[in-house]
């Protein structure tokens, strides 16, 4: 497929003496939808946070368009504005309305004018079905609505890659659908996405690359057909068996 956008080389991360990630290698091409699956505590979220430099990797490289962004003395702000992130706990700015949430990054970071920023924000809010709620504060919205606003906020920065950190884990079951629906739409439009998820159906149907993590290493990766249909490692088989039983 397309050009390589993001490349993770020998990435490792330790908190003190506790090694959370070890020797992680994978590549994201333009238009890829990569799902990262694995048991809780296997380092999925930490990996995503390392890619966005919310955690500083202890070793290895994160290469974005041929440039290592994880090096010392590197200003991460410009890089982060090109890599969007959607959090499990939404992290909408609670002092701003829905519209302001989607505009503040554009006006402050990208230095867009108020008019352009507003137009752009409205475009993405309409896309996630939240345009009528522009004057609401985050505390007045349901979980699913908050997460859709968070997706619109990330999209409004027009990022090249969008990272999702368990976007549906904090939602009530009936709200999971509306968020996954938005994400399916984005995938269909060719957005490059990296999704940490427990939604196996999403990983199987929507993504074109699946990374299975266990104990801080990548245990197995490949196409969904390979990983779900013909898992090679015992850990993968055990993990998937647990989901089938549910």
């Amino acid at each position: 497929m397309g050009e390589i956008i993001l490349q993770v080389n020998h990435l490792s991360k330790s908190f003190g003496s506790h090694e959370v990630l070890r020797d992680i290698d994978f590549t994201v091409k333009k238009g890829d939808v990569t799902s990262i699956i694995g048991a809780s505590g296997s380092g999925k979220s930490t990996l995503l946070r390392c890619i966005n430099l919310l955690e500083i990797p202890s070793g290895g490289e994160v290469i974005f368009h041929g440039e290592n962004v994880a090096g010392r003395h590197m200003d991460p702000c410009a890089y982060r504005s090109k890599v969007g992130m959607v959090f499990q706990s939404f992290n909408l700015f609670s002092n701003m309305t829905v519209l302001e949430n989607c505009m503040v990054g554009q006006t402050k970071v990208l230095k867009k004018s108020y008019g352009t920023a507003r137009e752009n924000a409205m475009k993405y809010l309409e896309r996630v079905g939240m345009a009528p709620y522009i004057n609401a504060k985050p505390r007045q919205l349901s979980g699913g609505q908050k997460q859709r606003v968070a997706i619109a906020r990330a999209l409004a920065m027009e990022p090249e890659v969008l990272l999702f950190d368990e976007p549906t884990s904090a939602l009530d079951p009936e709200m999971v659908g509306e968020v996954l629906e938005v994400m399916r739409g984005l995938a269909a439009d060719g957005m490059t996405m990296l999704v940490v998820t427990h939604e196996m159906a999403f990983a199987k149907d929507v993504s074109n690359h699946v990374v299975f993590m266990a104990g801080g290493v990548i245990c197995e990766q490949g196409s969904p057909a390979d990983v779900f249909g013909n898992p090679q490692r015992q850990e993968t088989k055990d993990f998937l068996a647990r989901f089938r039983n549910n």
Partner: protein
Amino acid sequence: MDKLVKLCQDVSLLWSKYWPMYMNGVKNTLVLALVATAIGCIIGLICGILNTIPYTRNDPLPKRFVLKLVRVIVRIYVEVFRGTPMVLQAVFIVYGLPYFTDNALRFDNTWVAAILIVSINTGAYMAESVRGGIISIDPGQTEGAKAIGMNHVQTMTSVILPQALRNIMPQIGNNFIINVKDTSVMFIISFTEFFAAHRYIVGVNNMYFPSAAIEMIGYLCMTLTASIILRLVEKLMDGSDNYELVQADALTMTAGTYTRRAGGTPNAALEEERRSRLRQALKNRNGSTRGDR
């Protein structure tokens, strides 16, 4: 009962004779408390913000050194001024400075001295309140801001401080009310606030207790007014609990229940038909997009 009547008589006697003096004291107390609280808040805000600038191992050494030094200085300031009585600080600054500098440095204006002392005192308390306000904001807010590429200054000014300031409003009120009462120790540098008026008045007659009663009522009136105003300000800052849905186009009434985009499912054709019928129905309402419900 007779005692109470007697007290009331004495109070009204004192008031009718000395009310300009009492009122002048009230005015001075309020102005001092207001100005000093405002300046103290600014000092506290600066200290609190400086104190919470994050640094990591990856930052260059000079930056880490400066930040560390700033924290130590703020820490010393807070501990010294929070840990000693204001009345002694007043004595040290107003009488100590000329003593050590052989009158080269001294305060001729008691207003300046009083404002200075109360301000730096309030600043020491507020520094900790502001720090508390900043660290009480959910780290997710900072992460959300970082994730869209904001730097520390942008994160602070747009996201963290507006929320932190709202959270420390009760603390600002607290400090103002404490200042209204605690400025009474400023009589030591012969600043004529409300309590100094009392000391002067009871010095020229023997009605100590009735005058103290006037003081009590006066202080309570000032602090109660301050409390009420503060509550109103907080309410204003919280804004309305209601919001209007913006009916941008006819279909927005169905928004909030995001439905699958047409195509790819067996229901797609049905869904599209349902939508177009809805669109048509809404159009027919004399151009009004707002439903009757």
